[in-house]
């Protein structure tokens, strides 16, 4: 393993512009040390997908991503035969001199993310994104793949991973996952970051942002998260918003500019409607008071 301690991995991730909290760094470190997949759960926008990208960067590995959705099947997740090419080949070969093995060889195989990750010679980080969206049957199939890291294609035989990919699963918890799948993985819940860390993230991601502005933006988003919103803003929204404010040349926030730019923080109409006028002014005041002085 490339990293001798959690500190080393944390440091490498920071250099790759990703600021994990200690818990996430521990989860990623243990995932590598124990060769176990890690399941990341948390509200939308806390950086689950970003974590996988950052891990791939620091490992110098290729990131292969499988985005899950309801109805996802083997043809889209594992492999498919390239039928148009096969048909062309049959045409070209003409009268029945063709053997079946020729037609079902690797050159006619379309490798989808799971097969690609197992087939690959280079190191791979396999991101299985939003697994809670896939059907239960697919989950069961995935469990098989994650236990043996091998895939059987009837025409070709069994393909075994030369090196096991690092596997990150993410879930937004729209449903509970199978216990069997959870048993196979480390579990880490990512909460919203502390205000200090969020300010740090904003300053890293928005070059040239005034310190005071970063602090007030982070504090305001924190106030928003305490409300009962349909979709509480994540770190990604804080970054977008700080970027917008910075582009407008602001040094700090006030009710007017918040009103103008609220659309980059709140993505639902009901939420925008719930935060206006007095509520908005009150939150701005609270944020300006709460923002830690740089």
């Amino acid at each position, binding site marked *: 393993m490339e990293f001798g301690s959690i500190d080393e991995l944390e440091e490498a991730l920071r250099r790759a512009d990703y600021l994990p909290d200690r818990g996430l760094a521990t989860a990623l470190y*243990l995932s590598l040390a124990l060769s176990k997949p890690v399941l990341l759960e948390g509200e939308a926008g806390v950086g689950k997908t970003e974590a996988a990208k950052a891990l791939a960067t620091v490992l110098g590995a290729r990131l292969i991503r499988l985005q899950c959705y309801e109805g996802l099947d083997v043809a889209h997740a594992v492999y498919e035969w390239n039928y148009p090419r096969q048909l062309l080949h049959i045409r070209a070969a003409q009268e029945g001199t063709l053997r079946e093995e020729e037609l079902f060889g690797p050159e006619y195989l379309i490798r989808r993310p799971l097969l690609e990750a197992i087939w690959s010679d280079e190191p791979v980080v396999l991101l299985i994104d939003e697994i809670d969206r896939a059907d239960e049957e697919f989950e069961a*199939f995935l469990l098989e793949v994650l236990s043996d890291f091998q895939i059987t294609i009837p025409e070709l035989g069994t393909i075994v991973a030369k090196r096991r990919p690092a596997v990150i699963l993410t879930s937004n918890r*729209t449903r509970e996952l199978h216990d069997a799948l959870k048993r196979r993985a480390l579990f880490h819940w990512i909460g919203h970051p502390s205000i200090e860390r969020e300010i740090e993230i904003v300053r890293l991601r928005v070059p040239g942002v005034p310190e005071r502005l970063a602090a007030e933006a982070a504090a305001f988003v924190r106030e928003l998260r305490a409300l009962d919103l*349909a979709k509480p803003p994540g770190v990604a929204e804080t970054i977008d918003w700080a970027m917008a404010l910075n582009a407008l040349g602001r040094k700090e926030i006030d009710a007017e500019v918040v009103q103008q730019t609220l659309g980059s923080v709140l993505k639902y109409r009901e939420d925008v409607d719930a935060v206006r006028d007095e509520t908005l002014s009150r939150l701005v005041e609270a944020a300006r008071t709460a923002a830690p002085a740089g």
Partner: protein
Amino acid sequence: MAAGDAIVGHVVTFGRVLHEAGLEVGPGRVADALRALDAVDLERREDVYFSLRQTLVSRHDELELFDRAFDAWFLRAPVLPPARARMPEQVETSAVVDLADRTQPAGDDDPDSGDPVELGASGQELLRDKDFAELSGDELRRLRELIARIARARPQRHSRRRTADPRGDRLDVRRMIRRSLRTGGDPVERPFRARKEVPRKLVVLCDVSGSMDSYARALLLFLHAVVGTGRGVEAFAFGTRLSRLTPDLATRDPDAALARCTEAVVDWGSGTRIGASLRQFNEVYGRRALSRGAIVLIVSDGWEREDPELVGREMARLARAAYAVVWVNPLKGNPQYQPLAGGMRAALPYVDRFLPGHNLRSLEELAAVLAGIERRHAA
């Protein structure tokens, strides 16, 4: 290595504490926890905490429990795992109300049978719209067949696997290519594949408390018919506590089934503790993934005596596991009805479809909804 042994002892004990507190901690997880501790710096409490948490906990709602247990263990405080509500003992009681008495209220010795108005098609029509609360025992018997017919419309789901099917919707190209080899590459045969339809799991939770009294017998008939449709159906009754009715309802004869249910349910006509009953369901049966991917049908007037907030919390948990949640409230049959009862209000945000269910016509509507229901989409 004495230090190593000490750690093993600690972790095994800690695992047992968590298990006592209701977490699913088996030997596999304890082994993972030991491997994890082996890989991190034991001097840093934070790293020890996350190593144990990430290997021993697999659900967000167990984190709080874990934290309390961890503090207790780490600080060497006396270990007091928070108590979980245990499944109450099912007490056999002779004070069970006999269902037969309920279906035939005293003094109502069959005055309705033979009433010419209710025979024939128009009679059936009348019966369809009549509130269950106003049905006589005899009318109820005549409803049986109709109820059974409605219950047969089970919601289906697509299996992931496709099987060969000449009327399928997708060309089986793999097979076509293989067969076309025999004909020099010309696809003479066109095999198709289709997704197999299998019935979706259905879980029914029926309120049999006092306020639901007049509807309970008709709804139990419905439950009996639904359980009779085959695998993947689970039925429960609740008042102040939860009773599993599936085995009792599995009897073919509806009268015998209803009689057995009466014995199984200890709190007929009692008060309602919806929140506590739902929690019991989530903890005991939800844990065995009974509700996962299932359509959960709750039949209740939403009259919570104790803690409406608990209803909301447990509904959230239930809705997360379920494919869809349908709530049937007989009171909704009244046009003036507003969901004002605290429990009902707390539950509604997690309900996909909210329906009446006070007469036969509304049961038909229910069957149609169940057959065509779509998955709830969380924000």
